[in-house]
């Protein structure tokens, strides 16, 4: 089976708080930062102004530890995300009456004023929370200086020789200061990428690097930098003209928020590398194949230095995020960002890319990629209907061209210098940029696109267009300024002006709209592939294999959904014999799977209360199920593949009498030596009891007890040492033979089984019939109800989810109990025994031993008295009809109510009957209860005696 990721199936829309954190890239970096309880994000209306800027903005201020964030009402003009550890001082400004204003002094000496425009109590409570949160983050401040010092943005400001870190005076922690001061001057080292050594792509003069750097220097000096950047409208323009190469890595980190992750996880990257040094995995093998083909035209990647850098980042990430591992296209992305950033910076940026900016893009199912392609298609049909229609007419699929655009952030499609400018905007403004650019590309090429006839033409057209991005968009214009506009500039203008309607919300809602379609598409594809790739499909038909797959998949989903987050993996991703990824399931998942296939592997109770009747289903746990799991685990991996399960089911579902007996025998033959030990026989009996636990009446119980008696009697008789034991005087127990020596072979087992009608029928057809592949309809159990209530029920079922359904059920149960109409009955696994038969006396046992052996074994003090049992059989074999029932029998309303395992509850009552000779049923006129107690006791006694 190919891999299945249940994660995206169990996708849950982010909560409002999560959405806000998403917007600000303000994700808690570690589990410590998540507040234990209560509200995660506190927000308040505020007007923000920055000292040195005239403009102030009204918007919302958010406190979400460890961050304080602000965004203007239009959600783009002004915003900041400030880690609380960068706030050096908070003062309450007492200006005009009734105004509540806070003044924040940041690490980089900027002063931000926020006027809280809410009512006084709200503002007070916000301030109190802010104070607590600031206090909690205080220890982090110590780490700030060494962290910031190596940022290129600091270096850039410092170049002017200005004293920029006044903050040092305040936060002297003494520890490193002595050393620090001396080396500070000499310290010119800063973080940067391969570009510093191998040159950056593009001509610095043409890119106007110097003037860009100058503008940024001015901006960063007054608006903060790296961890404290405050975004004002001018920053948008600075980003859209392209970031200066030297500052690019620094700003990518800041704009995407990966810098906060790096701050909170210092040393983690190196740690991962050290921990997995020398280890390999399928991901590392895949990485090796691609190292030499990641931006090979860039000079660094023709050297060991560049290759080594790339290898370390990709490998470390594949260890960090095993679910993703490594996906082709990540190599291109990482190769690109490593030109501008250090390894550790790139590592955390990759984390942000894979988790937040491009969710699910690189996962094994690539569901994120497929989803966004679907979203893009839908946006094209909405915004560019003519092109979309033409594509439909000529049967051209948009994704053949657009998939690599999204998957490699255009880096693989356009000349690098242009792609990087798109990446700049992408980090600053989020995933919508990819869509806006894509739409603009199509729009600009609209006329030519209407002429294409096939995929090939589409690809060629796009390729030609990308190759002319640097050319003038209006080569024949008379105005020289018009002529100077390149195709790329035109592209950005179209993208951000004409497609500004595409917002984050558009993307979110489109993703939501198409998610199910994509999920079911992937699921059916995976299913088809899994079924097709089975090596052995046994006697199953294709639909049955599909049903097995579905059931398995549901089990995996059920476990992942119930598990706490990602830590509970229902499916294990391993590799098959060919080294292909493969999903295997563990025991826990297997139990759920089996419970949906075999009737005896679940407990089904029919709960009826005043309203409705419903079926509650729980997964049974028993040694038998574990036994089957390990029996089917032929490669001894402690986990089953789809193939293992198909082969396993095939080995039991189509069996006839003899092969079922053999299957059961082999299953319990622990050492597979062809003999059951005494232990094995007991285990086998317990398995049978387990299967029969919910059957009505005592017929099966009696059968199992007879089976055991027979098995042990026969087994003892066949023991070679039995003859010597014959010497043991009557009344004294022969010493028990060791419980783990070979005891019963298949032929004997078969004989014992065939001696009992019910067991024979069980092994002949009933057992195989307990396996059913039609799929359980899920939580929506068939509910039978009448009248008004049915109407309400129907209405309700449309409204209620699983969770409140549980609540509803609980309520209904309570109510049913209160009016005395609550009833729970267990569904039998076989259900063959009907009510009449249930009332029958369990058949008494006939010894299977031939008279000679029996004599011998009887004289040796063996267990039962054959004579009495046969005579009793005669007296009890007559079926009792309900009319003849003794009056004290309880009337049976629907199905008799009983607990699944009555044995333990009754054993105490019968202690005085411990004498083994009394183990036989002694009379036909007992009540049903007494009879069942007796046979229960028989079983119990045997278990005790032989355990």
């Amino acid at each position, binding site marked *: 089976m190919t891999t299945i990721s249940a994660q995206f199936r169990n996708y849950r829309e982010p909560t409002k708080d999560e959405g806000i954190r998403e917007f600000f890239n303000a994700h808690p970096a570690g589990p410590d930062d998540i507040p234990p309880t209560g509200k995660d994000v506190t927000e308040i209306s505020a007007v923000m102004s920055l000292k040195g800027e005239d403009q102030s903005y009204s918007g919302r201020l958010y406190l979400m530890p460890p961050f304080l964030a602000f965004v203007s009402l239009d959600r783009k003009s002004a915003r900041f995300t400030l880690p609380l550890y960068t706030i050096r001082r908070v003062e309450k400004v007492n200006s005009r009456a009734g105004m509540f204003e806070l003044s924040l002094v940041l690490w980089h000496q900027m002063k931000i004023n926020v006027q809280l425009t809410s009512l006084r109590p709200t503002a007070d409570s916000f301030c109190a929370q802010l104070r607590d949160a600031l206090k909690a983050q205080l220890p982090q401040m110590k780490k700030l200086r060494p962290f910031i010092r190596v940022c290129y943005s600091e270096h850039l400001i410092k170049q002017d020789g200005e004293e920029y870190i006044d903050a040092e005076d305040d936060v002297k922690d003494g520890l490193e200061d002595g050393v620090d001061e001396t080396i500070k001057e000499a310290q010119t080292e800063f973080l940067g990428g391969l570009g510093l050594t191998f040159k950056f792509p593009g001509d610095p003069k043409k890119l106007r690097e110097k003037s860009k750097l100058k503008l940024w220097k001015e901006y960063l000096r007054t608006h903060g930098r790296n961890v404290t950047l405050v975004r004002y409208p001018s920053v948008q323009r600075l980003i859209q003209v392209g970031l200066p190469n030297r500052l690019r890595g620094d700003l990518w980190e800041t704009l995407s928020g990966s810098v906060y992750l790096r701050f909170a996880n210092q040393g983690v990257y190196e740690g991962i590398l050290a921990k997995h040094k020398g280890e390999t995995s399928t991901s590392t093998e895949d990485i090796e194949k691609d190292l030499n083909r990641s931006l090979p035209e860039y000079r660094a990647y023709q050297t060991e230095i560049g290759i080594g850098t790339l290898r370390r980042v990709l490998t470390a990430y594949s260890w960090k995020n095993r679910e993703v591992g490594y996906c082709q296209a990540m190599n291109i992305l990482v190769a690109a960002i490593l030109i501008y950033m250090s390894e550790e910076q790139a590592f955390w940026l990759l984390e942000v890319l894979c988790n937040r900016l491009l969710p699910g893009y690189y996962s094994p199912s690539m569901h994120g990629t497929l989803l966004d392609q679907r979203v893009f298609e839908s946006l094209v049909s909405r915004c560019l209907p003519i092109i979309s229609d033409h594509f439909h007419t000529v049967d051209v699929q948009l994704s053949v061209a657009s998939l690599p655009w999204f998957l490699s952030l255009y880096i*693989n499609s356009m000349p690098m210098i242009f792609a990087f400018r798109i990446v700049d905007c992408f980090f600053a403004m989020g995933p919508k940029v990819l869509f806006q650019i894509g739409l603009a590309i199509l729009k600009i090429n609209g006329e030519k696109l209407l002429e294409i006839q096939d995929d090939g033409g589409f690809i060629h057209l796009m390729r030609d267009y990308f190759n002319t991005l640097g050319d003038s968009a209006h080569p024949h214009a008379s105005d020289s300024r018009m002529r100077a506009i390149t195709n790329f500039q035109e592209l950005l203008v179209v993208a951000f002006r004409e497609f500004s309607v595409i917002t984050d919300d558009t993307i979110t809602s489109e993703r939501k709209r198409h998610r199910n379609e994509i999920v079911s598409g992937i699921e059916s594809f995976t299913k088809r592939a899994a079924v097709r790739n089975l090596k052995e499909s046994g006697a199953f038909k294709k639909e049955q294999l599909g049903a097995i797959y579905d059931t398995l998949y549901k089990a995996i989903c059920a476990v992942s959904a119930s598990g706490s987050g990602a830590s509970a993996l229902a499916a294990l991703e391993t590799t098959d014999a060919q080294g292909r990824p493969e999903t295997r399931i563990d025991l826990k998942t297997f139990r759920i799977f089996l419970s949906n296939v075999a009737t005896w592997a679940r407990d089904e109770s029919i709960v009826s209360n005043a309203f409705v009747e419903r079926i509650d289903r729980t997964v049974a746990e028993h040694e038998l199920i574990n036994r089957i799991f390990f029996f089917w685990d032929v490669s001894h991996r402690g986990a089953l593949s789809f193939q293992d399960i198909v082969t396993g089911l095939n080995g039991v579902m189509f069996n006839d009498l003899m092969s079922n007996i053999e299957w059961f025998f082999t299953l319990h033959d622990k050492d597979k030596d062809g003999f059951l030990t005494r232990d094995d026989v007991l285990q086998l009996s317990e398995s049978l009891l387990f299967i029969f636990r919910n059957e009505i009446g005592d017929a099966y119980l009696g059968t199992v007890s007879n089976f055991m008696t027979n098995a042990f009697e026969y087994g003892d008789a066949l023991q070679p040492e039995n003859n010597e034991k014959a010497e043991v005087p009557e009344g004294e127990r022969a010493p028990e033979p060791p419980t783990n020596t070979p005891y019963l072979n298949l032929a004997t087992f078969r004989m014992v089984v065939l001696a009992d009608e019910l067991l024979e029928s069980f092994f002949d057809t009933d057992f195989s019939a307990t396996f059913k592949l039609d799929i359980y309809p899920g939580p929506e159990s068939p509910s039978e109800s009448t009248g008004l209530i049915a109407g309400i029920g129907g209405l309700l079922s449309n409204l209620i989810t699983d969770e409140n359904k549980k609540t509803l059920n609980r309520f209904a149960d309570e109510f049913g109990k209160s009016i005395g109409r609550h009833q729970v009955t267990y569904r039998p696994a076989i259900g063959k025994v009907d009510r009449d038969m249930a009332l029958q006396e369990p058949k008494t046992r006939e010894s299977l031993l031939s008279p000679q052996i029996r004599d011998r074994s009887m004289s040796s003090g063996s267990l039962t008295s054959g004579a009495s049992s046969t005579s009793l059989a005669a007296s009890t074999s007559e079926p009792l009809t309900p009319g003849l029932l003794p009056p004290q029998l309880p009337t049976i309303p629907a199905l008799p109510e009983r607990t699944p395992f009555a044995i333990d509850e009754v054993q105490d009552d019968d202690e005085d009957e411990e004498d083994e000779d009394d183990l036989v049923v002694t009379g036909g006129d007992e009540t049903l209860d007494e009879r069942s107690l007796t046979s229960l006791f028989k079983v119990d006694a045997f278990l005790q005696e032989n355990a």
Partner: protein
Amino acid sequence: MAESGDAPVDKPVQVKLVLLGEAAVGKSSVVMRFVQNDFSENKEPTIGAAFLTQKCRLEDRVLRYEIWDTAGQERFHSLAPMYYRNAQAAVVVYDITKASSLEKAKSWVKELQRQANPNIVIALVGNKLDLVQSPAAAGAAPAGEEAEDEEADDATATPGEGGEQPLPEPEQEGESLRQVPKDEAAAYAQEAGLLFAETSAKTGEGVVEVFTEIAKKIPIEHILASTRGGSGSRAGGAQARPNVTLQEGQQPAGGKACNC
């Protein structure tokens, strides 16, 4: 597209061909050899799929192959249908020095036969022949059913301006690297109704022939008919076309190799 206008007499027939196979078996290299008659160790990786075209002359007809060279990594598998839909031909590549790659190839064949255009012409290609050849063996004519290889060899043996002309490494023990016996793969191909060849993208051996053989099998008349009939209907496949027998030996051995 330039070709999409009116149809001159020898307007090339467009054939959509898709390359499938496990990662790193040399799909891209095979295409590169065919399209540019070149070989490079460090190929740009394939994201989703690379698209290339190459014309191929076969007797009186000119075919224009539109080649989709797909990514081999397993997780890109679910994207493959996008590329093989409407394809008239498929080259399924495996690595003769890696047994598991044939298994993957077989599963691709299965998938194509069930999901793709019902009349798709599939060629099974075992690549990296250079790794198992001693220099002596390389020159010798391949044995058995592929008698036409010998003639076709001439076509490929004249490299373009590349001048690289890599010689097979002198590895006497080369055969031991082989994990997939030729007979076994050929037998499977025969049984599954596939064209079959072993190639070396590095030396160029057998590569062009694969595409020539495919060209011979392609129901060109049908493609022309359906393209004329309306561009949307190409997906269907050939109802009217008589069944093509996909056995190797029946081809006229004298077919001119691609004139690339």
